[in-house]
C-alpha cells in the first residue's frame, strides 16, 4: 500500500489553514520549518491576470531521492504504507552533511530549523493520527476541502491521475505520491 495526498489547486484560495494547522498539531514554531508550505504564483499582464496557490508537504515518493542521498541512512520508507520517515537521532545535521537530502529532492521538501547543525524534519503523514483512523491534520483543516489523503490507488480512482499543476511537475524519477487538480491547465 502506498499512501498519498490529493491537492485541488482549482479550489485553493491560499488561506494557509493547512500549513498552520500542521504547525499547531506538531507544535512547530514559526520560522524556518514548514512541514506543509503554501506558495503562490502570479502571472499575466493587467487586466489578464492569473493566480494560483500550491500547498505541498513531503510527497512520500515511491522512489525517494532523499533516501539515496542520505549518507547516514537516516531516512527510510515504511514497507506497510510507503510513508517516508526520518530518524532525527541518526541524521548527521545540516552543517555536517550539507543537506544532501534536500538538494536531491526535486521539491526541496526536507526541512531544517535555524538551530545549530539542525537535523532534518518533514511531514510524517500524521502517523499518530493514521493509527487512529484519522486523516492528516492538514486534510481535516482545509475549509475548501481542497486536500485529501488515502491510498494512492483509491485517490486515483476518486480523482483521476492528474500529475501537473501550476508550480508542480511530476518527477518521473522519484514518483511523488500526490494527485493534483490544476486551476488553469487543461
Amino acid at each position, binding site marked *: 500500500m502506498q499512501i498519498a495526498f490529493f491537492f485541488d489547486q*482549482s*479550489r*485553493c*484560495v*491560499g*488561506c*494557509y*489553514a493547512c*500549513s*498552520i*494547522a500542521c*504547525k*499547531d*498539531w506538531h*507544535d512547530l*514554531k*514559526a*520560522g524556518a520549518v514548514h512541514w506543509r508550505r*503554501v506558495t503562490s504564483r*502570479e502571472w*499575466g*499582464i*493587467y*487586466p489578464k*491576470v*492569473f*493566480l*494560483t496557490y500550491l500547498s505541498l508537504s513531503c510527497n512520500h515518493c515511491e522512489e525517494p531521492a532523499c533516501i539515496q542521498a542520505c549518507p547516514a541512512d537516516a531516512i527510510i520508507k515504511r514497507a506497510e504504507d510507503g510513508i517516508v520517515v526520518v530518524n532525527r537521532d541518526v541524521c548527521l545535521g545540516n552543517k555536517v552533511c550539507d543537506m544532501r537530502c534536500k538538494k536531491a529532492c526535486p521539491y526541496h521538501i526536507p526541512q531544517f530549523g535555524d538551530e545549530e547543525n539542525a537535523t532534518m524534519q518533514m511531514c510524517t503523514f500524521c502517523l499518530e493520527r493514521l493509527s487512529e483512523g484519522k486523516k492528516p*491534520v492538514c486534510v*481535516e*483543516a*482545509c*475549509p*475548501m*476541502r481542497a486536500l485529501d489523503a488515502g491510498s494512492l490507488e483509491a485517490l486515483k480512482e476518486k480523482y483521476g491521475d492528474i500529475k501537473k499543476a501550476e508550480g508542480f511537475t511530476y518527477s518521473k524519477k522519484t514518483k511523488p505520491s500526490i494527485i493534483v487538480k490544476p*486551476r488553469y491547465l487543461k
Partner: protein
Amino acid sequence: MNSKNDPTTNTEEREIITSCPHDCGGRCVLRVHVKEGIITRIETDNGEEPQLRACVRGRAYRQRIYAPDRLKFPLKRIGERGKGAFARITWDEALDTVAGELTRVKHTYGNEAIFYVPYSGNTGTFLHSQLAVYRLLTMFGGFTPVWGSASFWGNLFASNITYGTLTTGHTRNDLLNARLIIMWGWNPAESIQITNTSLYLARAKEAGIKIVSIDPRFTDSAAAFADEWIPIRPGTDTAMLIAMAYVIIAHNLQDQKFLDTYTTGFEQFKQYVTGEEDGMPKTPLWAEKITGVPAATIEALAHDYATGKPAALLTLGAPGRTAFGEQFHRAASTLAAITGNIGIHGGDPAGFGLQPVGLQPLASAGLLRGAAPGNLPEGTTAKKGVHITKVWDAILKGKAGGYPSDIKFVYTTNGNPVNQFPNTNKAVEALKKVEFVVVHEQFMTATARCADILLPVNTHLERNDMVRPWHSGPYYLYLPKIINSLHESKSDLEICSELATRLDISGYCEKTEDEYLREFWDAAKNFTHTAPLLDYDALKSKGVHKIALKEPAIAFKEQIEDPTGHPFPTPSGKIEIYSRRLAEMNNPKLPPIPRYIEPWEGPHDPLTAKYPLQFITTHFKRRIHSNLETIPWLRECEPQMLWINSLDARRRNIGHGDMVRIFNERGEVILPAKVTERIMPGVVSLDEGAWYAPDEKGRDRGGCCNVLIKDEHSPAGAFCGNSCVVEVERFTEEK
C-alpha cells in the same frame, strides 16, 4: 461542574468545542484539546455536515492565548501619555484609580464628559462584550456614546430604508440555485463573510454557474471562483449599477410585474436613469468615464443579470465604505428589484444580508435589557452620540465644535480605535488632551499605549459565554470556559463588577455566568427565526447545534408569495426604490432615489493633482482587523505590503519589495511595495489592521492605513475608508 468534568483541572486530554467570537466574518467550530488546564492543540469541526471549518486565524489561536506579549497585570502610565511606558500595579490600585477618576469627572463635569469608545473585539457574544461597560456606565448615570461602524453602516442604512429590515439574506447553500453570481467588491476568501461561503462559491463554479468579480483588485476570490474579473475605480460602483439599470430599462428587460407588485418609486428612478429628469442619460458610456469599466462590459453584464434569472448580486461592505457609500447599497437593491431577483431561490436582494434563520442580533443584547434607565436605546445611539470617524475631532473641539459634550474621560474596551478609526495621528493628539484614559486590553495596541490605566482582559477561552453565528445562520454555539484566566487577567464583566462596587452601584451583577447565560438563552426565544430553541443545557453539553434545513432559507419568501398578507416592513409596505423618509430629510446628499454622487477623494477629486493614487483598505487573511497582528504563525503567512500596479511602480522607479513612502496631508506610512498586476493602475491598497508604529519623525512603520484616511463619514454614516487619495514614492533611509 464536578472536577472530573472541569477542563481547567482534568489530567486527561479532552477535546472541547468552542468558536471565535471575533469581528471576523465567520463563526466556526474550534475543537480545543486541553490537558491539565493547558491548551495543547486546536482542531476544527469533524462532525456532521455542513462542517464549520475554521480559518487560519482560529487555527493559530493557541499562540494568541499563550502569547508572550499578552497583557498580564494591571498597569499604570509612567511618563508621557502615548509613549507606552507603564509600571505594574495591583488590581486594587487600578480599580480604585479608575473609580476615583470616574467619580471626579462625573462630579466636576457631569456624566456627558465620560466618553465610551468601544468597538467589535467581541462580536455576537451574549455576556462578555462591550455591553458590560455599557451597563456599568448607564447605571452610573450615562455617558457620551459613539455610533456608526467601520464595516457596514452604509449597507445597514440602505437596507433599512429599502427593505425595512436587515434580514435580507439567503443561507449560502442557496448560491447553488443561482444561474449567475456577481461578487461586487467582495472577497470572502479573505473576509469570510459567513463560514463556508467560499466553499459554496467553489461548488457553484464547479456546477457551471457563472461568477463575476467586480473589484479594483484581482482577489483570491476572483482568482478561485470568477469567470470574469471587472476592475473598477474605487468609489464609482454606484455609477456602474445605475448604468446597468439604464441598459435594462432601455431594452425593456425590467421585471415590470415585480416592480408593479412589490416596489414603489421605480418611475422616479427611471426618470433619473434615463435623463428625463436632468438631461443626462446614465448610459454605459457615461459610466465608463466615471468608473473606468468599458461600456460594452457594463452593457453585457446588465444583459446577463436581467436575463439570467435567478441571479445573485452579492454586495457587502467595501464599495459602501466610501463617500456616499449608502447610494451603492441603495442602487444595488434597486437593481435586484428591477430584475425581480428578490424572494426567489438563487437570487439575492443585495441588502444587509442577515439570514432568516437562527438567532437575530438582539438575541445577544441581554446585559442591556433591564439595565438602569439610561440613554441607550438598542440599535442606534445616534442622537446623542459621536460618529466613530469623529471621535478625535469631538475630543479636540467638544461642544464648541458642535459635538454633544466636552470630553474629559475616555473609556475604551473591546477595540483599538487609535489604530482602526480614521486619522490616527489626530487620535494621538486628541488623547493627549483629555484628563484620563482607561483601556481594557489583551495586547499592547496603539490604543493601549495611550492609557493611563491599562487593565488586562481574559480571552473567550477563559470564561463562559454563547455566540451568534455571523449574520445569523442555522446553528448555535456555546463558548465554555476551557482554561483558567491567565496571568492576572479578568473579564470585562468582572472588572465592571468590581468597579460597580466601588461606585456604589447596586444590582450591576447579581448572577453567576451560568445564571445569566441561562436567562439570556431563555430570552433569546423572542429573537429567533427558528423556534423552538434548543434547551440551554443541551446546547451547553453539545457545544455546537446545527439546525437542519429542508431547503435553503431565503428572505422575503412570504412577501413575494403573498404580498397582501405580508407587506414589506417599510412605511409603504413595499420595497422602497423611492423613500419618503429620505425625501423628508431634504438632504441633497441623501436623495430619495439612489443616485451617483461624486465622492470626495475619489478618482476625479481635484486633490488627485497632488495625490494621484486612489488608496483602498482591505481585509487581510491573517488578521481580524487589528487582532492577531503579533502572532508569529500568522505573520509568516504573508507580509504586510502596499499593493501597486507595475505601471504606477515603474513611473516611480519602484521595484517589488522596495521600501516606499505613502503619504497625503494626514500622514505617512513607510513599508515595502508589492508590485503586482493584481491591482488596477491608479489604485494602491493596504490591508487594514496593521499596527501603528511611528518612528521618531512620526512616520508610521507598521502599515496602519488609518494614518492616511480622512476622518469624515458619509451623510448616512457610512465609513469612508475607501475614499482616500495618496502619493507614493520610493523611500531610502536617511543616513
